[in-house]
């Protein structure tokens, strides 16, 4: 993919700043998702839009170089593993699948729906980045 005419120092600096802010917003959405009307899907999209814009601006190859692909592949696998765990774990405890489990950690009550939201976030970001990396010129 050729470099975009929009590639400039100003655009790159803006992209880095926006990307950084979007990470914060995204994780805030995810971690609050099960307690407040936050939404892990929204969080994932908030992160992915700037990411995609980077691809548009810098071009695919350059965009890929800057991405820690292994991290996103790992997040995809971890997300899917979390889904499987959340499907099976309640069954093993005699509850319907995906049923919320409440766990106390360091005096705080954590619900498995938080893990569910994290799983959605990890899977969405991992799968979209994997798809982006898989785009290529097929004959």
């Amino acid at each position, binding site marked *: 993919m050729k470099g975009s*005419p929009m590639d400039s120092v100003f655009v790159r600096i803006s992209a880095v700043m926006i990307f950084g802010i979007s990470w914060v917003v995204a994780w805030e959405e995810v971690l609050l998702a099960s307690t407040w009307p936050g939404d892990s899907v929204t969080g994932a999209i908030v992160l992915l839009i700037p990411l995609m814009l980077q691809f548009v601006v810098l071009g695919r190859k350059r965009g890929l170089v800057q991405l820690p692909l292994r991290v996103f592949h790992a997040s995809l696998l971890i997300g899917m593993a979390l889904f499987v765990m959340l499907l099976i774990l309640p*069954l093993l405890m005699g509850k319907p699948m995906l049923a919320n489990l409440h766990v106390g950690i360091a005096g705080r009550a954590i619900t498995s729906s938080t893990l*569910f939201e994290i799983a959605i976030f990890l899977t969405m970001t991992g799968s979209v980045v994997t798809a982006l990396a898989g785009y290529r010129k097929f004959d």
Partner: protein
Amino acid sequence: MSSAGADVPLLWILTLTIPWLSAVVLILLPSSMDRYAKALGLTGSLLGAVAVSLSVLMHPPPTYPQIIVDFPWVSDLGLDFVVIRDGLSTMFVLVAAWISVLVTTFAWTYLPTANHHEGAERLEKDFYAPMSAFTGAMICALTSGNLLQLYLFWELTGIVSYLLIGYWENLPEARKGAFLALGLTVAGGVLMLAGFFLIGIKTGEWSLGGLSQAKSSIMGSAWLEWAALLVIVGALAKSAQFPFMAWLPAAMAAPTPVSAFLHSSSLVALGVYLLARLYPLLGASLLWKWSLFGTATISAVYAGFLAVRQDRIKALLAYSTVSQYSFMFIGFSLRTWFGVRAALYAYFVHAFIKAGLFLVAGSVTHLTGHKEFDKVGRIATSNSVLTLYAAILGLSLAGVPVLAGFFYKEEILKAALYIESWFLYGVVLIASVLSFAYTARFMWDIFLAPPEPDHSDRLPLPMAIPIAILALVVLLTSFVPDWMAPILNSAVVSSTGMIGSFETKVEISPVFWSSLAAAGAGFLVWLLWHFSERARASSFWIPYVLSLPASAAGRLYSWLSECFLRLHTGDLRFYLRWMLALFLVLTALVWSARPFSFPQPATPIDYRIAVLLLAVVLTAGTTILVVHHITFTLVLTLVGYGLSATFLLMGAPNVALAQVLVETLITLSIILALRESFRIDPDSTKMLGEKSTDLPRWFISCGMGTVMGIMTYLAVQSSPRDVVGQWYPVEGFTKTGVKDFVSAILTDFRGLDTMVEISVFATSILAIIGLYWHERISDG
């Protein structure tokens, strides 16, 4: 059914789980450790086979389905995860487990040579992992105590077999064979599922135990006929019977261990298992009798004729398998205890014979490098031991009196004679004649006829030992034909519910003489084929009347293929027009069948929303007319943003925000994909020419950003309407302890929906991973 209580046969559970564990380990095995894959694969299959054998020795299987595991899943719908164990499932599991061990051993030295010969650079773990997974899926299907669970593993075996048939993905015939096998078996499976749904909805029962208890109340119901027909279609497709038999010869592009395991004794056996399992419920129906009667008759004889004239060794064995499996279907069509017993006996003996013959075929290819009859010959001069094994197996298949195959054919003949079904008796005899003819061809052309082999190599031990074991089993069956009687009796009782004993021996009777006559006639047919060129002409060889159903089926396939190909124009507008037209037609049909009136809207619709909706509909309609790719993408984006504005006006700002974000993401994704596609001229993706100034770009970018900013601001500022429903917000926290009731809905209240969505999501992700992996491999 009764529960096993505290005495749960751990061994049975290990039998189910070991293959899956082996598959997972093999999948996760790093490529650098691929040399250990064969050892891991063999260890997994051996442990599983030992586990099931010990379970049989220590806890002989009961004749009724004993519940080993009963996991509550969706108990309100009567859907639990149930694992059962009885004589029927045990017999099939034993055969599958031990043949798995033997073919895995065979693959030890076969696979590296075959990979090199086929020019395939595949990791061995890519073979052993699906083999283990297939074994696991097969055993889980055989031990499922629930119709939907059975269907799940039924299709899983088909999916994994697709991977195995297409293992040599560099070969076009392997890819084609894999697709054909998957397509035909899944098509049959879907119809079978419809039959399962009919049974489940009409009886309210999904578990096999519940169905056996409800049997007496549903006998004679009209819907049972249709359920039987739909289930039989699934069985026909899986066992490659007419009109679905095309996939089995095409699947011979798979490595020989796959053919020996899946396509002779396990995957195709699932059809037989299904008939045996549901025989008590569906066996009394007339459609059961006549559909099996008709299809098995055609399969037995037509496949037999086709087998004789094949040029490739494994294709002959494939058609032979179709023909032999039709004997089992004939047994079930008789609807007697004798017929079921004969069918199950035939399955058991045939599994070992055919697995052995496939391994012989693979050995011949390994020794000579060829797969065609005219390129191999006189193997007997260089490999006398292989010839001996092949003779034992081949003559058994041919039905030579007092060898193993003779006994199971005798049983089928006796079962037909028992109810004086002379037509089926004749069909089995004709098929037996043909089985002698094609087996004679197999033996003569490979082992005795020229040409001389180029070189004489010894068969490696890992390849020779499994063949020897299978030949020994067949020889044992020849001398003691009812050595498996305890297992077989238990299986027959499990299927029919009727107690009886199995005993067979050589008896000089009319059946014996007709079997002998069939063998003699088969020899003459082979002589005719061998010496008469005219006889080998297809118009002479295959009687016209017999080819009529097959050619009609072939013409139907061709016509359907042409119709589907015409629909694949590659033009998105064409697809959209069809989708829209079908949507309107279906809506009209539903409306005419069940007229409904539009409910009062929960929120008052004002003119702004009406205008906006109209604009969205018209914009969506223009997608049919738009040609330019980027324009098309932007029109779709406008549709999405228009809907978002509608949500905003309706007082749902959170939905509006989510819609804006999703729409933006999709737009960017499509644009990126378009720019990467070779099929699209890169210049056509530019809306602005190279020579244009940056001003239009700034205008568009700022404009889009401003619009999105305003919409976001409006969304944040707007106040939501009155709550539509109170139940979830109130009950969500009370019942689940989760403050966000949306999360509570997803996980607690609507868990089944979410599970389905996760499955769909996971499927898309697999496609994405495949796309990425393909790109990585292509880049080297």
